[in-house]
């Protein structure tokens, strides 16, 4: 006899642990007991097949997610009338949420099994009908149910009309179902309160071949084989839960034996297990899974009992680290308790502790946090690191029915904020500030890909522009192809992000003299020695062109006085005076040069 409470502990993996009879027994106990603190959910399941067999599984899987499920099954094939009839058993049940699960083959079996009899046209019209009926159902359900409406998408049958060759034809059933699923996803986006339940994805991941038990289908029109019923219930409840719950925002990671194997304080950065060979590969695989979460806007934080310096060194420089120092919105490496650090992380990121999820290999630490802050989500980490990535994928804390643009930008936003804050606190000298920016410049010669941006900068840059010569794009293009002209650019990246292509220079060779026709830069990277780096690059070209001397000019305008001292600052000496207050400056390449500044890394 299985203990009800123990079976409902979400930390226990149920797959295979419970027998069908256990589900019946636990479901009954749950239905009879009052469940304090559980979210009640009255679910109406409207299917084109018989789904009643799912009841105990839905109740148990609901309870494991702290949801008390009551379920009503619509009479299959008749639920559309039920939906529009206020006095129907469906509405007498007063559902919070409605599930619509139709299978194309249940609506018109010939459209599916005899797909080629009509050249696919019969399926095409079935597809239209299904979408119309679904839209109708969603509107009817939403008019009375206060909760979400979930609509199952469509699974490809185990055996396609053309067998293993079905997918080879673009006009096959396989692709027609794919298109129908895409249309369904688009339709549901337009219907408020409607969500897609990825039934097709579930069938695919479990394997369509044994999805249906032919005995159950023949005897009871039940589409789901017994072995898959608990999994389907878990999948459906998980999907519903995501529509009614707020996803967690931040994953708090331990370091030793979580992001890498070994203890960094004892083993040192070269002694830890991390890389492409086992067991280091398991940790690397896990780091990639974490990166996937970050990509969809989950913030990353570290809480580790560790020496902060060695942590920073490892996160910044270890060649096998997938996750980098900059990927974390908050890093706590110290000797305080995990729960203290977790509270600090929540405070710093300005989110609730219930928005945090802990991933820590050490069960003692997990227990400490669970006891101190029960609101924190805790991933049950398997003992073998090879299972870490799967444990993260399977945890439901970050489930989110739809991804928003701002989600993807959130990590960057928080990171910039953190960087600015720590810079403001820590910087003591201009030199240190420049170093802390971690600038990385890429330089190159103009080509078709960059010419548009170069012409744009030439046309609009006013302040940091030595000559303000407004060459058109076609003029620039001619210069690019001229063998004595150099049109060059610089692109800058720093710890705050990619600044893009922001410096442009044009050099023209006349005999042994390199004339700087144009030198301009976006103001937002001023005072960072970027201009010095670029000049160093231009001088390399001047030398390569065989020049002995470089000549530049400052032509004053109403807006470019900030660069009046540009050439003298770089070591040029005054040459000829020009009209309208202009001034030439000269540099003798044999005697002087301009060094690439060491605060900028050249890539």
């Amino acid at each position: 006899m299985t203990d009800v409470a123990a079976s409902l502990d979400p930390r226990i993996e149920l797959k295979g642990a419970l027998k069908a009879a256990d589900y019946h027994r636990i479901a009954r106990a749950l239905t009879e007991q009052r469940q304090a603190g559980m979210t009640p959910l009255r679910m109406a399941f409207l299917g084109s097949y018989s789904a009643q067999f799912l009841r105990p599984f839905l109740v148990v899987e609901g309870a494991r997610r702290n949801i008390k499920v009551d379920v009503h099954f619509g009479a299959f094939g008749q639920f559309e009338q039920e939906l529009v009839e206020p006095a129907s058993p469906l509405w007498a049940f007063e559902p919070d949420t409605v599930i619509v699960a139709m299978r194309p083959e249940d609506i018109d079996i010939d459209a599916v099994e005899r797909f080629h009899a009509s050249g696919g046209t019969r399926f095409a019209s079935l597809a239209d009908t299904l979408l119309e009926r679904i839209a109708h159902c969603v509107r009817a359900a939403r008019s009375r149910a206060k909760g979400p409406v979930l609509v199952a998408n469509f699974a490809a049958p185990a055996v396609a009309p053309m067998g293993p060759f079905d997918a080879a034809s673009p006009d096959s059933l396989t692709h027609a179902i794919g298109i129908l699923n895409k249309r369904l996803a688009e339709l549901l986006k337009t219907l408020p309160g409607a969500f897609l339940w990825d039934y097709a994805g579930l069938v695919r991941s479990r394997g369509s071949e044994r999805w249906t038990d032919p005995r159950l289908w023949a005897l009871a029109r039940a589409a789901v084989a017994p072995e898959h019923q608990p999994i389907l219930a878990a999948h459906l409840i998980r999907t519903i839960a995501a529509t009614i719950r707020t996803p967690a925002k931040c994953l708090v990671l331990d370091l030793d034996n979580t992001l890498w194997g070994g203890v960094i304080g004892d083993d040192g950065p070269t002694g830890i297990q991390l890389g492409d060979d086992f067991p280091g590969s398991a940790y690397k695989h896990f780091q990639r899974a974490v990166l996937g979460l970050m990509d969809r806007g989950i913030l990353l934080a570290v809480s580790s009992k560790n020496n902060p310096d060695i942590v920073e060194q490892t996160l910044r420089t270890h060649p096998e680290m997938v996750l980098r120092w900059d990927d974390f919105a908050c890093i706590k490496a110290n000797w305080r308790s995990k729960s203290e650090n977790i509270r600090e992380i929540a405070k710093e990121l300005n989110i609730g502790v219930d928005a945090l999820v802990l991933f820590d290999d050490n069960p003692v630490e997990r227990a400490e946090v669970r006891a101190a802050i029960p609101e924190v989500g805790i991933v049950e980490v398997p003992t073998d690191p090879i299972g870490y990535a799967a444990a993260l994928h399977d945890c439901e804390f970050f489930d989110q029915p739809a991804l928003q643009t701002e989600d993807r930008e959130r990590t960057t936003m928080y990171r910039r904020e953190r960087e600015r804050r720590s810079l403001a606190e820590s910087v003591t000298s201009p030199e240190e500030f420049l170093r802390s920016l971690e600038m990385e410049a890429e330089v190159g010669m103009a080509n078709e890909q960059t010419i548009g941006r170069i012409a744009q900068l030439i046309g609009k840059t006013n302040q940091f522009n030595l000559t303000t010569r407004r060459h058109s794009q076609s003029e620039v293009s001619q210069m690019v192809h001229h063998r004595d002209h150099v049109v060059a650019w610089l692109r800058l990246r720093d710890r705050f992000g990619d600044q893009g292509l922001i410096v442009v220079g044009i050099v023209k060779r006349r005999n042994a003299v390199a004339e700087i026709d144009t030198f301009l830069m976006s103001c937002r990277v001023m005072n960072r020695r970027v201009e010095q780096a670029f000049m160093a690059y231009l001088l390399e070209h001047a030398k390569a062109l065989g020049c002995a001397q470089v000549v530049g000019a400052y032509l004053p305008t109403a807006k470019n006085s900030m660069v009046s001292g540009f050439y003298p600052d770089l070591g040029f000496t005054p040459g000829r005076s020009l009209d309208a207050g202009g001034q030439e400056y000269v540099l003798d390449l044999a005697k002087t040069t301009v060094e690439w500044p060491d605060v900028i890394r050249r890539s």
Partner: protein
Amino acid sequence: MDRRFRDVIEAVLAVDGSAITDTDSPRSIPQWDSVTHLQLLLALEDEFGVQFSPDEMAQLSTIGLIRQRLVSAGVDD
């Protein structure tokens, strides 16, 4: 088998397992309907690692018939 057999019946049919006799059938147990009938057989399959044919699923309509079928499948009585 007996105790496990009775436990499964109790779990699925919501009856007192110890009071079940071989003559019990859908006629004596009101909640034994077409759905719970299949649920019972599926739960027994899961419990004892047997598999019933579609014909058997349709014909095993009393506790006694089900018990005999399990015994003939080698499940210890």
